[in-house]
């Protein structure tokens, strides 16, 4: 019996490493969990990209759910995400608000002119100050905010057709059920 102990030890290690590999394919180790889920979105007042004299605040947006999509012209992954938003942005069921993050105004406008504008509205955070309140640490990131101004879902990294189908749409559907 005691001769089998090393074998069982080996088996245990195999299981442990196997679990590790499986876990790492399921989870992104670099993803920082957001403590803001199910908490009110931070208060913000940010200017619009097309008309900086006009500002949009969190309280302006209360009443209906919306998706905030953090993007920038310098962000490579945003280039991957953009065609997906162009194709599906209008059909996900909530307005998509572009959050232009630490970008140059001209670059941002040029980028949207060149690749198309999938957003219902684009707000600008040039300094990235409000982004810190949102816990943004890169782009793209997306936040689903409900009608009461509560963050219900966050996606770190690009929205892909798969993510939209399996995560975002169910989250939006759950919101629709809640609201009488």
């Amino acid at each position, binding site marked *: 019996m*005691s*001769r089998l*102990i*090393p074998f069982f030890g080996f088996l245990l290690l195999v299981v442990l490493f196997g679990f590790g590999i499986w876990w790492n394919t399921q989870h992104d180790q*670099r993803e*920082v*969990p*957001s*403590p*803001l889920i199910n908490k009110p979105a931070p208060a913000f007042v940010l200017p619009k990209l097309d008309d900086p004299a006009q500002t949009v605040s969190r309280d302006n947006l209360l009443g209906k759910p919306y998706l905030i999509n953090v993007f920038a012209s310098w962000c490579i992954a945003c280039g991957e995400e953009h065609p997906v938003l162009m194709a599906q942005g209008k059909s996900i069921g909530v307005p998509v608000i572009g959050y232009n993050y*630490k970008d140059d105004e001209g670059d941002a406008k040029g980028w949207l002119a060149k690749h198309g504008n999938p957003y219902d509205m684009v707000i600008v955070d040039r*300094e*990235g*100050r409000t982004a*810190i*309140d*949102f*816990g943004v*640490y*890169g782009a793209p990131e997306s936040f689903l905010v409900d009608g009461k101004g509560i963050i219900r879902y966050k996606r770190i990294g690009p929205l892909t057709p798969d993510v939209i189908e399996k995560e975002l749409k169910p989250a939006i559907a759950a919101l629709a059920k809640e609201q009488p």
Partner: protein
Amino acid sequence: MALLFFAGLAFAQAIDPLPFKNHAEEVRFQNLTRELRCLVCQNENLADSNADLARDLRHEVFNLMQQGKSDDEIKQYLVDRYSDFVLYDPPVKGGTLLLWFGPLVILLAGAAVVVVTVRRRVRAAPVATVDDKPAEEGDDW
């Protein structure tokens, strides 16, 4: 030699010159930012990172210090936004129990194996001494 010294200073300053009131404040800032993780690079702390966000967060920490916030308040401010992940020294709670005590558990398990093995050999020892080749018996595993 002097040149090297100044080169080092210049490097540290070039990353991020902040208007510290005095040396003590600068030391406090350095210690604090060393305990905070850069979210972008993740293997670096805020003090050493060159990432854009790290620079922003350093400024944020600096501003909070100017507002008279304590170290704990500043850490909490960042934890509220970025979760415990920003702390290099995570608090002991449900999700971090394994992180904190996992190594101890493994150590204890190893110790238990050693104790069991030694006891078994002690029991086997009288038999082994009678035997002609005790070394081979002992090499069982």
